[in-house]
């Protein structure tokens, strides 16, 4: 089922009434979550992404705007009646119930014609457990499980009632690094097997990029950009999005456009025809640097790190905002390490120009 958010705004009342104002956690949010897709809601902490999730679940009421599930307006429908599945960051498994009792808990709430027999419940719980591969842990208590297993139980509990939308709040943040990689693939598989529209919140761009069908990048309660992960990466709308996506991060320089040429630290590094003369911020992706003896951009070489098939060239430039510039090149690239200077050519598709003040993309 698709989920549509229309002009959605959430303002939290101020702590004490005298100070006035209040915090705008979500500001005029407009987006359509397409049916049957995995969507990543991405942004730094405090950007309002969890609030957005809680608005969809119904745990919070919006200050303004509407929420539609399919064609139905559910804005004022309480959480109990929305039929969404929600996985909490700390899982919120009931500690006094076994895994099986946790999973059947939502099913026992069905009333009237939806009411299930014990056998039906057990069958559904088993299916859900099987989907997340915990069917052999059914009689354990949550505290007897590892973090990864608890998380699977939480997902099974959210899925067992076949929710119209599955919401996950920072699903991987409580897992260790190795388990995180494994679980995110798992998440993708589960979503594809069930075909349930799934929204997950994360502050980890790599996580969102790797498994989402679509990402929504938020900052300060406002959507900055939406789209397929690769599209957003290749075409960031502003400096924030460009900086937020990608590891290693994009390198940002202060630059100047003069007569259709982009000048960084005195070097003419690129032709930018049709751009008026102005101060700009220049963002270059790590893979946009091509070491080349005839290269136009001169930097001070400070080191090289080889990581399997790739190599990371570390250098410095006075105009660069980042402490160091990291360029990712194939491991077999020849670099003269005896020289203190390194020259780069810049790949045209990997360089973006932003307004010096607003950070809006201009090239």
């Amino acid at each position: 089922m698709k989920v549509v958010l229309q002009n959605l705004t959430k303002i939290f009342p101020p702590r004490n009434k005298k100070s006035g104002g209040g915090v705008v956690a979500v500001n005029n949010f407009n987006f359509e979550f397409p049916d049957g897709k995995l969507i990543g809601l991405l942004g730094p902490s405090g950007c309002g992404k969890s609030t957005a999730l809680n608005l969809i679940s119904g745990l919070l009421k919006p200050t303004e705007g509407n929420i539609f599930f399919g064609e139905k307006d559910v804005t004022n429908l309480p959480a109990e009646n929305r039929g969404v599945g929600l996985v909490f960051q700390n899982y919120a498994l009931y500690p006094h119930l076994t895994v099986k009792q946790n999973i059947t808990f939502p099913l026992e709430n069905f009333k009237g014609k939806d009411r299930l027999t014990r056998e039906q419940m057990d069958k559904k719980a088993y299916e859900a457990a099987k989907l997340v591969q915990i069917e052999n842990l059914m009689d354990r208590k949550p505290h007897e499980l590892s973090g990864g297993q608890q998380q699977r139980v939480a997902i099974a509990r959210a899925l067992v009632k076949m929710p119209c939308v599955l919401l996950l709040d920072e699903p991987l943040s409580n897992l260790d690094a190795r388990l995180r990689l494994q679980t995110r693939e798992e998440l993708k598989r589960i979503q594809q097997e069930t075909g349930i529209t799934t929204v997950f919140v994360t502050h980890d761009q790599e996580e969102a990029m790797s498994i989402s069908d679509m990402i929504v990048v938020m900052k300060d309660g406002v959507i900055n950009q939406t789209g397929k992960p690769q599209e957003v990466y290749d075409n960031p709308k502003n400096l924030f999005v460009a900086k937020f996506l990608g590891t290693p991060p994009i390198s940002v320089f202060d630059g100047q456009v003069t007569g259709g040429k982009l000048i960084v630290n005195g070097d003419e590094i690129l032709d930018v025809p049709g751009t008026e003369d102005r101060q700009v911020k220049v963002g270059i992706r790590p893979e946009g640097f091509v070491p080349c003896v005839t290269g136009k951009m001169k930097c001070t070489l400070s080191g090289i790190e080889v990581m399997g098939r790739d190599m990371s060239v570390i250098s410095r430039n006075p105009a660069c905002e980042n402490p160091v510039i990291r360029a990712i090149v194939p491991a077999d690239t020849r670099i003269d390490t005896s020289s203190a200077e390194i020259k780069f050519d810049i790949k045209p598709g990997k360089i973006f120009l932003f307004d010096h003040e607003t950070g809006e993309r201009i090239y």
Partner: protein
Amino acid sequence: MQNNTDYKKVQKISAQNNRIITGVTYFFLTLWGIVVLFPFYWMVLTSVKEYATYNSEYIPKFFTLTPTFANYTEAFSAVPLGRYFLNTLIFTVVTTALMLIVVIPAAFAFARLEFKGKNFVFILFLSMMMIPNELVVITNFTTITNLGLRNTFSGLIFPSIMSVFYIYLLKENFEQIPDELYYAAKVDGTKDFKYLMKVMLPISKPTVVTITILKVIECWNSYVWPRLITDNPMYFLVSNGIQEIRENGFGRENIPAMMAAVVVISVPLVVLFLMFRKKIMAGVARGGTKG
């Protein structure tokens, strides 16, 4: 799963249910509030009714338009209420002060000092918490009687001082003060006692205040021990005084004067409570029990 339900209707019903539940909740909360407050209201009301008026009301009135303070004068003149009050004040202040003098060094020793047999002695102390007062009160009564301390403040105060629980509470609090502070003070040549007074006590002030208040409440309301140990009204505390007033005081039927006395002895603690509401409630939640 809910595709076919009428969302508008569900919304309306749930909003309505919520309003009803909230209303019913407030109704019952208020009802219990009345049950709690009514005796207080009644006692104040009765205390300002005239004796004659009170006795002529077959159906008691819920308010009075001619409040009188005569009962209060009566309460202080016809029975030695002022004396009871003063006794209780002395008893409470001295007992609480002595309790602090006994409890603080003991908590400090358990929390900070190293000595042989510390754990054993501490466990022995803790096990004292299980001993009900009723078991020891009998011998204490005989001891105090044999010492000829009946109808004296010493007899009232000494057996009431110890509170193992407060040693425990304070010790836990002292232990949360980082060791570094102690070592820093030692390096500077600070004596243990000075460290206790100048560093530990100021840091643990909230807990000290809490146990002080709890002890004050306990003392102000104590009844059983004072009743056993005093039969001379000159040494009665308020609880015994009120019982005495009830049985022999103004003549059994002067209820307004009796209520005036009840108001007078209830006011100090109610004022104390309203002043330190948060502290008292937090302190009691941490392990106070009544009685």
